[in-house]
Every structure is written in structure tokens, then in C-alpha cells.
């Protein structure tokens, strides 16, 4: 198991948001975390990447990461594309790329840049532009590219479809599919758009006010009309 989370509890100051979550992400697999606004999905990702300090057990390839600081968890191979995308707006596309690969010392960085240019040709076009001048879709691609340049074991994606036009979202998810097929990265995907997420994922969990109320193979959940109607709204 790439990521194993047991009894995860977290919150902001006196407000507790997560009340004991259990979930996992397989090596090279895609796990979807679904739920309505306020369910705690973003908080869950933050707890895994260390932006907030969780209680409970978080194991990355068997190693305890709960309680480590964000930088250390990133260096262990967890790339988090946060809510709002986290792009370095004042820096250029090139600089964002360089920052993605900042911690790497291996010689394959140049090859990875080339791969990102192939997957995201528009980013190559806008190489020396300030990231803040890119469109929403391009910024999302930049955020994903930056995360991938870490050569992560685990990719955390917070609502990649957020605020994007449907056509662009399709492009993004096509890329995510490519990521799943061509690299061995495990993905923990938080999405409000359950349909898209279930299409991509192997396994899914449904979060409701800080608790997991349902889990199972994505294909099953997708086909179960009763579950879809009552929990996912379609």
C-alpha cells in the first residue's frame, strides 16, 4: 500500500473537522475522495501533506509521516496540488518548473522537463511568462506539472476541475489518465465532480462532515444507482 491512513483526526484550532478517517491509496492506483462542500476533503489532503498537523496514523510506504513538517513530507515524495492551485504567480512558468524539481539531485530532471512539455505544450509556449498571466486551465496544468516534477510517489490533487470550463476539465482529466498510465504515481483525488472522479479512480471514499460514510471500488459505486442518487446527486 502506498498510503495507509488510520483514524485520522484533524482540525483548525478548537474546531475539529476530521473524526477518525480510514482510507488507503494503492501503488500506482487512483483513489477518489468525494463529498459535498465542507465535508473535510481539503482538510484531509492538508493533513496528509503536513500543512496541518494530524492525529492518527499516516503511513507512506510503511513510513510514519504524521507529525512531520510539510517540507520533509514533500521530500519523501508527496506532491500536493492544493486548493487554489498554489502556483507561484509572480514567477515565470520556467521558474515554477525549476521549483517543482528543486529538491531533486538526479540527472533525469531535463528529461522530465521535456516530458512535461510534451504533455502540456501550452506551458512550453508560455515558458517565460509570469504564471499569474496564464488562464485558469493553464495554471491548473502548471500546478500539476510542477507537482509531477517532484517525481512523487503520491500525488494529492485538490479539485482539479474547480472553476474551469468543461472542455478544459476534459483536457485535464485526459492528462490525469495519461499520468496514471505512463507514470507509476499513486493519486489521491479530491473532487466535487463525482462523475469525472469515479471515471478515473479505482477506489472511492465518500466523506460527510468529517467521516467516511461509504467506500468501495469506483466501478461499483458508479453503477449503483441508489448510491448515486442519494449520495452523489446524479
Amino acid at each position, binding site marked *: 500500500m502506498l498510503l495507509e491512513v488510520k483514524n485520522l483526526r484533524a482540525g483548525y484550532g478548537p474546531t475539529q473537522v476530521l473524526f477518525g478517517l480510514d482510507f488507503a491509496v494503492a501503488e500506482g492506483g487512483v483513489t477518489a475522495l468525494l463529498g459535498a462542500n465542507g465535508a473535510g476533503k481539503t482538510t484531509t489532503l492538508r493533513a496528509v*501533506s503536513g*500543512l496541518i498537523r494530524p492525529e492518527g496514523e499516516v503511513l507512506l510506504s510503511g513510513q510514519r509521516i504524521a507529525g512531520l513538517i510539510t*517540507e520533509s513530507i514533500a521530500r519523501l515524495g508527496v506532491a500536493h496540488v492544493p486548493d487554489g492551485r498554489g502556483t507561484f*504567480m509572480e514567477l515565470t512558468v520556467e521558474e515554477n518548473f525549476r521549483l517543482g524539481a528543486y529538491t531533486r539531485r538526479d540527472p533525469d530532471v531535463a528529461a522530465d522537463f521535456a516530458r512535461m512539455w510534451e504533455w502540456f505544450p501550452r506551458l512550453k509556449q508560455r515558458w517565460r511568462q509570469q504564471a499569474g498571466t496564464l488562464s485558469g486551465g493553464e495554471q491548473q496544468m502548471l500546478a500539476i506539472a510542477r507537482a509531477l516534477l517532484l517525481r512523487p510517489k503520491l500525488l494529492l490533487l485538490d479539485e482539479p476541475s474547480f472553476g474551469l470550463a468543461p472542455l478544459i476539465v476534459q483536457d485535464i482529466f485526459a492528462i490525469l489518465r495519461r499520468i496514471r498510465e505512463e507514470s507509476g504515481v499513486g493519486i489521491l483525488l479530491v473532487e466535487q465532480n463525482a462523475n469525472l472522479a469515479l471515471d478515473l479512480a479505482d477506489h472511492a471514499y465518500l466523506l460527510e462532515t468529517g467521516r467516511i460514510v461509504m467506500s468501495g471500488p469506483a466501478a461499483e459505486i458508479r453503477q449503483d444507482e441508489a448510491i448515486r442518487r442519494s449520495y452523489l446527486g446524479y
Partner: protein
Amino acid sequence: MEAFLLQLAAGIATGGIYASVALAIVMIYQATHHVNFAQGEMATLSTFIALTMIQAGLPYWVAFAGTLVVSFVMGALVERLIMRPVQHAPILTHVGVYIGMLLIIGNMTGWVFGYTIQMFPSPFEGGKPMLGGLISSHQLGSVVVTLAVLILVYLFFTKTSLGLAMRAAAYNPRSARLVGIRVDVMLALGWGLAAAIGSVAGMMVAPIVFLDPNMMLGILLYAFAGALLGGIDNPPGAVMGGFLVGVLENLAGAYIVGTDLKLTVALVIIIGVLVLKPSGLFGRVVFTRV
């Protein structure tokens, strides 16, 4: 005409010093969104340390380099020990801490090194007029040195990985952490670098105004004016602002208000900028969300 050129040249020379201190201020501002009121005192202390090294027999440039290193360490320590504990405190506490540092460092300098005005040597064969008599050799030398420092700093931030990481940590600490940058270390390094830059300014200005514990206060003011004029979130802008202020100060002092009120010129510039164009000549406008 020659008098005008003289003032202009002198303005550029002092402007270089203001530009250096302005850069130090802006670097810390970018990283922390706070203004280091104690920047001047730190530079003065560094200059006294340099003098001590020189008086101990070290050649000038060895003492110069040594002072850079010591200042760097001092700046990083101040960040770690004094700034770090209050990083989440309200703004008033921060201002208070800066004031406290100003008091401590300023008074410590006076206590350890005494309050008598001292001479500080210039490495540029003090005093001979150059460029057709427009500018003294020291002034020219100090412009060259400050420009060299500024160019090196520029290259560091734009061309090196570490410089990029420091900028990233200043712009977006959260995202910087997410790519594995140790933001806390970057902050300490930034302070160290700012202190080192400030020490250069101190060593360049001391031969002109003579060294005493209050040397940098007026300069700090001009540096503030320069940083604001250029845009406090814009390092190259702040540098240009520093040069501009140097020239404006000298010209205004010579032709408009007289040397007695030169500090007032800085004040007027500061107020003028903030009232007319708060983001400075080259800065960006920032919007606040409700």
C-alpha cells in the same frame, strides 16, 4: 553647470548607498511583510566590527570580507532568535520587537565601541578627484562597489537555485513548503544576506560621514524613501529609488531647501509617494479582500 554636475555625481554616489540599504529593507519586507527598523543600527555595528578588524592589522579587503561573513551570521541569528518566536504575533508586537532591537543594537554599539566619532579608512586612496574633478575617488569607488554588490545580488536571486528558492519562500511560503523548500532556513538566509548588504553600505558611507553609533539613522530614512519610491515589493525598483533619492536629496539640498533641511526632503518624498502613488514608481498595486 559644473556645480550641477558635481551635485548630480555626489547624489549618485550617496544614492548607491541608499540603494543598498533600500535593497536590504525590501528583501526583508518581501520575505516577511515587515520593515526592519533596526537595519541601520545593524549596519553601523557591522562597520564598527570592520574597523576593529582593520585596527587589529588586517588588510582592508580581508576585513571587508570578514565583516560580510560576521554580518551574515548576525542577521541570521537575529531572525532565528528574536524574529522567529513572534512571527505569528500581531503587527504592533512586531513593530515593538524591531524597536527593541533598534535600542539594543544601537546602544550595544555605543557601549562596546564608544560614542566618539571615528575615522574609517577608504580603500580608494581617499579623496583625489576623478572624472574631470566631478567626483572623489572614494565616491567613485563606492559607486562601483555598491553596483557590484547589487549586480551580484541580482544574479544570485535570478540565476541560482537557492536564490529562486528564497524568492519562492518570500512570495508563497505554503507552496514553497510543498515543493520541499525549508522556508524557515530561507528566512534566516534572507536576513543574513540583508545584513551583509547593509554592512557594505555602512563601510562605504563611513569614510564620508565618519563613524559613530548614530551614523545610519539618517541614511535609513533615505533608504526608506528610496524603497517606497521604487516600490517596496520590488527590489530593482527599490534600488533605482535609492539612486533617485540620492540625487533628489543633493539637488534639493543645494538648490531648494538648503542642507539644514535635507532630512525633510526624505520625509517629503516618503509622504508624497505614499499619498500619490503608494505602490511606488515601479511597484504593483495590492487589493485587499473583505
